[in-house]
């Protein structure tokens, strides 16, 4: 790397992950620039989600390195890991809002306990983030009173409130009814406009075409092909990607 190049916001180097005998990821290298939206596609079981979960160490990598803004995520004491995780926002397929807390409290909890923000500041920030995802009026609602799409937007606000450097989306719309998908994609599109760095694992190919800066195709635990969306979707090179795309479009039709 030359000195003129800015530090990648997220850098994955030679990442390997084994579950017992099974090798799930092998020699994954990926650099995500500041403000970039990287979209990860691939068949189920290809290791997309595992790669994403290794980035904030919800999954423990077997070997390799992960850096966020040049700082290592691996081989650091737990306290430092907790601090680093504040910089890596995560959105799950299953939302995982805390069901015993209101939308507002879901968004203030980590701000107060992990960041140590005073209550007033955390609440102001939470309302700002809930407003950003269009749910300021639902601040006092309990998760059980919200639709799936609304819950996922609160979950996005919960992650955003910690001022992360990068946001990881693990199939954020896969658990949603089709008519609710749009509201979540809109929030993600807004985030991109605001310059948030994002890695998105998803099957929303249309969204990938419109919004991604770069598409990464994974299969069998390796990155097979990557490039701008028009290249990946318009001119796939590897047979595996061609096969995957025809399978996916077959399903959609």
């Amino acid at each position, binding site marked *: 790397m030359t000195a003129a190049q800015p530090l990648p916001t997220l850098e994955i180097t030679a990442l390997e992950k084994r579950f017992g005998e099974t090798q799930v990821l092998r020699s994954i290298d990926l650099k995500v620039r500041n403000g970039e939206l990287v979209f990860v596609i691939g068949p189920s079981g290809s290791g997309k989600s595992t790669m994403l979960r290794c980035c904030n160490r919800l999954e423990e990598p077997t070997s390799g390195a992960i850096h966020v803004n040049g700082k290592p995520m691996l081989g650091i004491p737990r306290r430092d890991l907790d601090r680093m995780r504040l910089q890596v926002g995560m959105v799950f397929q299953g939302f*995982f809002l805390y069901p015993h807390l209101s939308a507002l409290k879901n968004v203030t909890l980590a701000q107060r306990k*992990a960041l140590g923000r005073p209550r007033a500041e955390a609440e102001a920030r939470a309302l700002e983030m809930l407003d950003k995802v269009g749910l300021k009026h639902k601040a006092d609602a309990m998760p059980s009173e919200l639709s799936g799409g609304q819950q996922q937007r609160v*979950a996005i606000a919960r992650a955003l409130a910690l001022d992360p450097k990068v946001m990881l989306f693990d199939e954020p719309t896969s658990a949603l009814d089709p008519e609710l998908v749009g509201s979540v994609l809109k929030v993600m599109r807004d985030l991109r406009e605001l310059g948030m760095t994002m890695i998105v694992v998803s099957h929303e190919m249309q969204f990938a075409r419109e919004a991604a800066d770069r598409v990464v195709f994974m299969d069998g635990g390796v990155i097979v092909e990557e490039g701008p969306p028009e290249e990946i979707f318009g001119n796939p090179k590897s047979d595996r990607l061609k096969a995957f795309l025809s399978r996916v479009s077959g399903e959609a039709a």
Partner: protein
Amino acid sequence: MENLIDAFFNIDIMRQAAPLLLKGAWVTLQLCAVVILLGLFGGLGLALLASSRSALLRLPSFVFIDIFRAVPPLILLILICAGLPFMGIRVPPFAAVCIAFLLNNSAYFAEIFRSGIKAIPKGQMEAARATGLSPAQAQAWVILPQAIRNVLPDLLSNVVEIVKLTSIASVVSLSELLYSANMARAVTYNSSPLVMAAGLYLLLLWPLVRVISRFQRGLSISH
């Protein structure tokens, strides 16, 4: 019929026995407060150990829970009172009862807490850790509030069982409610003090039992 009333519901005898029984009820209350608190905290600690990722912490807590759930508390109590002096340790009856109940109750409470913790989806912990909360913070603010709420009726039912079970302290001559009632019965050759003791237990537990059934109703409504 008159004989029955005379033997079990004799007001004069009850009046005579009342001071002794009230004293016993007070000891029972104190005993309950101590053993329930000990059991709750011991049980919570055990449950956290039993839910740990480290087998080194998990296995001993499982062994502890299994053993002390299976051993009848009365045997435990007698063993402590009769056995410890042989090892040169003298324990007053109140302390012996507290030790026996700590061993027994914490095992029971641990199982209740543990089932509550286990029922919380893994994603809750992951979501909490992903936002930078430490394992302890995630337990305290995300997992335990949900787990305890889910098992609250079971915890309260166990409390009721414990209050009744404190009557076994009478075998080691701790002058709690049942012991006092039995004394009064022996002195008066009349069973009315026992009926009175039952009434006092009822008085003690009835509000709690009401709370439990209200809880269970409330839970079924909110779900």
